[in-house]
């Protein structure tokens, strides 16, 4: 993790958070909004791995919780887990999967929505399951899939993918 890379990644996440609170919250289908921060986090995690994903997820969550006067730490918790998991997913499947980005976005969106529902339920706030799936999860998923490739291209331009250094192990004999 270089300093320049970290600054670029943090800038991207901050920018995404500002776009999220100023623009994306106004775009609505059902009760879902495009989650620019989540898709950006997924893209950066795929590009830079689980450590970046976890740290940036935590920071993005803090920014969102602050901007929205939400419960401090709630979004951080979710995005930390999602960032870490996406990074691991990227390390494991990037080379073998046909569309790792789309799969990651689908799983991350579903995980974020369901995780958020579970945490809010534990805090005493709940919505009907049908509403969660039909009005939040499905439209949100569609939004995020539409955002996936453009945001990934932007992130890949700012944070070019690293070349994988393969070690050659020579037999000792």
């Amino acid at each position: 993790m270089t300093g320049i890379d970290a600054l670029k990644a943090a800038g991207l996440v901050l920018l995404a958070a500002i776009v999220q609170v100023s623009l994306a919250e106004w775009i609505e289908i059902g009760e879902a909004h495009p989650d620019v921060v989540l898709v950006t986090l997924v893209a950066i995690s795929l590009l830079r791995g689980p450590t970046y994903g976890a740290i940036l997820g935590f920071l993005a969550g803090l920014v969102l919780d602050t901007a929205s006067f939400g419960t401090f730490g709630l979004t951080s918790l979710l995005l930390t887990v999602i960032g870490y998991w996406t990074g691991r997913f990227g390390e494991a499947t990037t080379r073998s999967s046909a569309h790792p980005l789309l799969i990651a976005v689908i799983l991350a969106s579903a995980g974020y929505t369901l995780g958020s529902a579970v945490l809010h339920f534990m805090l005493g706030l709940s919505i009907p399951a049908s509403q969660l799936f039909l009005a939040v999860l499905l439209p949100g998923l569609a939004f995020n899939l539409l955002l996936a490739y453009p945001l990934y291209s932007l992130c890949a331009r700012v944070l070019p993918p690293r070349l994988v250094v393969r070690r050659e192990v020579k037999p000792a004999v």
Partner: protein
Amino acid sequence: MLDAPVRRGDGPPSRSGRAFRARLVAALLVLVSLALITVYFRESDDGPLHAAQRIGVSVLMPFEVAGERVARPFRDAWGWTSDLLGAKDENDELRQENEELRAELIEARTTAQEYAVESRMSDYVSGPRFPTDFDPIVARIIGRPPTPYQQEVVVSAGSADGIKRNAPVVSPDGNLVGQVTDLADSTARITLITDQSSSVSAVVLETEASGVVKHGASPSSLILDRVEKDEMASAGNTVITAGWTTERFESLFPRGIPIGTVDSVGQQDVDLFKRIQIAPLADFDALSTVIVLIEKPQPEEPARPATESPRRRERENENRP
């Protein structure tokens, strides 16, 4: 040689080392998040996390404002487009909702009106003004006169309900409406007192001036005719049914049913009788329910000679005693 340790050169950390470090960082951040949630919930609104959040909001505010200004045209465009797309559906939904609300409103108003009518009717039937030797039969008006010349209505009760021909009919307030002139099993025709064929013997309550109430110049007016010139009446007096009884005949209407109030009294030298203009108390245009008065069965009387038929009835416009 196989047992010799493998030397690794200096370079990027190994894959397992990076994975461990990532796991450690993630676990640490999860713990921090949980701690933040816990502290945030346990502290008061003046606590450090809330204060930090407020400071964070202040710091982010300029970015949000700037972002909002940049985003406003896009947001407006999105809103305009989505509004346009949703306008038709919304219009249909609102129309349907409007229809449903209108139906509910009509139903509620109808129920309220019915309740008010029933309340008045109940007060009248259980009150002292209701004639003691009659039973009430409540009937809804289902037909109105097709022309202004016929002052008749049709009600949804007939002979099967106990209604009899010539039975007097009053409004829910107990004001005289008319009498039953035709009958079927489940319907009956009521001729209103404003009809040209109708006449009711009546008296002025205050002065006992008696006469016959007939239709007036307009469909909704009445006159009290055949009042002797020496009898007195003045505007505002109440006209009620006379309810006379003789040995052989009896009025169709029991005494004391209010008919109207005196509007004006006219008298010309060449006329034999006074003509008194009456404003009917019953609002015939607003009537939706009426009460038909059915005389209770009389206790059996000793047999009379055949020439003296018991309590014959005749129409009021026939000769008065």
